[in-house]
């Protein structure tokens, strides 16, 4: 009887926890859409209900409503899964790896370089391309990780600088050795290096999506079912406590950066090998790495959450196109995304106040 009661209590607490965790992201999304309606009313000179109808039908059509758009939603989601996961691993270890963008670019570059090597059978070539992305991304992240662990330099500053280096290194190759005449991009990677497009060659969605889905579970397993993950999370929760418990925090900081960079690099390689088959000369960042910050924040740095939040952000990005078709400014989409982020941040503030209240209650008691 008693054990049953405890079990119920545990279950109840579990559900309560889940509600607490999901509450704010869901409110954030609803509010984001709600505020966007007003901008649609303003832009299109419509009433409230017409605004709702216009916005939601456009977003629906742009995300899941039509086959072609649904495919593009999946295409837009794929890189965000990787960058979202990369950020999540870093967040869980108490690091802010803004360099995911640069690591993603290095992964793209690796794929473009290795993808041009002729005479390799397809199966091996694809694996080499992906492996190249992993290594380029991991090395690119290991540098600021090592500096943080050894000398204590701020990883935020270093990774931001590494982003610019990555962009220019990529541009050096794209404009130089692998430049395709008369274009602003590299040569197309060979067919043997391309990821399989399972809906036919003209539909851009590819098995990179499934690589991402599998990776979600791999990262979940890594973080919660292995010693490595336990140590990473321990360092993230409290570095000094972890040290006290015998965990080498320096090793784990480097490791977290390497894992984060490897995921980002893999994402870049998948993007090139699956979706675009070449690297563009970059005049600005690709933004996949930066969007990944939002994805990870909304997902509360949980791999399973990344699945849904990357789908949300990918869907919104993809529906920007359809909004414009109905002459709604694409900026509406960015407004929605911005508001979601603000409310997710508000969650952290709300928690901070709750903690403070609790502490005061303890003090007063």
């Amino acid at each position: 009887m008693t054990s049953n009661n405890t079990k119920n209590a545990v279950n109840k607490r579990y559900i309560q926890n889940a509600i607490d965790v999901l509450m704010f992201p869901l409110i954030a999304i609803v509010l984001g859409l709600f505020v966007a309606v007003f901008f649609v009313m303003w832009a299109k000179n419509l009433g409230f209900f017409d605004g709702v109808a216009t916005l939601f039908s456009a977003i629906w059509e742009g995300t899941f409503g039509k086959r072609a758009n649904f495919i593009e939603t999946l295409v837009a989601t794929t890189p965000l899964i990787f960058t979202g996961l990369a950020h999540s691993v870093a967040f869980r270890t108490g690091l802010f790896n803004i360099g995911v963008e640069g690591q993603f670019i290095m992964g793209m570059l690796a794929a473009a370089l290795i993808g041009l090597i002729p005479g390799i059978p397809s199966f091996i070539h694809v694996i080499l391309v992906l492996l190249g992305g992993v290594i380029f991304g991991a090395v690119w992240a290991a540098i600021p990780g090592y500096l943080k662990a050894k000398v204590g330099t701020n990883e935020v500053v270093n990774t931001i600088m590494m982003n610019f280096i990555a962009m220019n290194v990529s541009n050096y190759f794209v404009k130089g050795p692998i430049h395709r005449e008369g274009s602003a991009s590299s040569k197309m990677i060979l067919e043997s290096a391309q990821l399989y497009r399972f809906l036919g060659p003209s539909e851009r969605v590819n098995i990179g999506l499934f690589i991402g889905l599998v990776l979600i579970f791999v990262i979940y397993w890594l973080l919660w079912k292995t010693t490595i993950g336990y140590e990473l999370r321990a360092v993230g929760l409290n570095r000094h406590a972890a040290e006290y418990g015998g965990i080498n925090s320096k090793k784990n900081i480097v490791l977290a950066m390497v894992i984060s960079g490897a995921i980002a690099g893999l994402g870049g390689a998948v993007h090139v090998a699956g979706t675009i088959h070449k690297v563009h000369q970059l005049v600005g960042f690709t933004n996949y790495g930066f969007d990944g910050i939002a994805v990870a924040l909304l997902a509360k740095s949980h791999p399973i959450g990344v699945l849904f939040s990357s789908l949300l952000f990918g869907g919104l990005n993809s529906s920007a196109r359809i909004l414009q078709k109905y002459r709604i400014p694409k900026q509406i989409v960015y407004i929605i995304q911005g508001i979601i982020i603000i409310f997710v941040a508000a969650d952290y503030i709300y928690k901070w106040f709750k903690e403070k209240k609790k502490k005061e209650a303890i003090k007063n008691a």
Partner: protein
Amino acid sequence: MKKLIALMATLTLTVGLFSGCAKQESQQPQQPNKPQIRIGLATDEGGKGDKSFNDAAIAGLERIKAEYGIEPQIIESRSADDYEPNLTTLAADNDLIFGVGFKMADALKTVAQNNPDKKFAIVDSVVDLPNVASYVFKEEEGSFLMGVIAGKMTKTNIVGFLGGSKFELIEKFEAGFRAGVKAVNPKAKVIVQYANTFSDVALGYEIAKKMYNDGADVIYHAAGGAGLGLFNAAKEMKKWAIGVDSDQAVLVPDKADVILASMIKRVDTATYTAAKAAIEGTFKPGTIVLGLKEDGVGISKTINPAVPKEVIDLANKYKQAIIEGKFTVPSKPSEVDSFQAPQI
């Protein structure tokens, strides 16, 4: 938590109620009966409001809208990855689809192949397909005339060229400009620098300032939004600048006093002509080259009063010579050194 939800629900309903009242009976103007063609256009990352290339392309379709009442569907691209899906989306709904910018060539080729029954047009690049019209400009010819003006106006015998990014397209501006300077002032040196951006105004400003400090007194730019930084630097240091693509003295009126002239590139003519042809059923695929002769490039209407009449006349003489085919302006920087301008 429950209170919060309740509050929000109340808020939603209340605001919804009031907003409902404001509903307006604005109907989209319909164009009944006449079976019309539909036109779509995808911009590059510059997007609407770049006061340059994309806006010029859209301006051509605005003229179509005024004349035929066809409102174009316009989709802006957020990054190069967007080109293909944007064009695909447009192709599903429209009969004539424009891709603006040479970077769209690959994507437009793919989409045009997938939609052989639709018509496509691309600006600044050549796509060799039976359903694509390609509009390219001889930017080097217009830039040559700017080079003539700069070469004549410089007192220090140093002039500058600020490029956006080292694309082959932008190198055509550089080559023409340098050839023009060489033709009228062989002693003058041209400092060339690429900003690697078409949007960073601050970087454009810094590069321009450095060039002016190095002795340049006239700078020509082909750097889109970064060129606005050039105008700021010119204004501050009281030096000369030359605009590009549109009549920039009109678009940036507060800097008009430092802008000698602008090299006009009639992207609007390209989109207007292609759309008009499609509407009237005379659309022809193939490559259409627009140079000085076709009035596709040229000198802006606004020329700074500081430019003496002789210089304008000289530029016009060169223009005439190019139109008559007396000489060819080099389109690659590597050809400038061996270029010999005829005496005029």
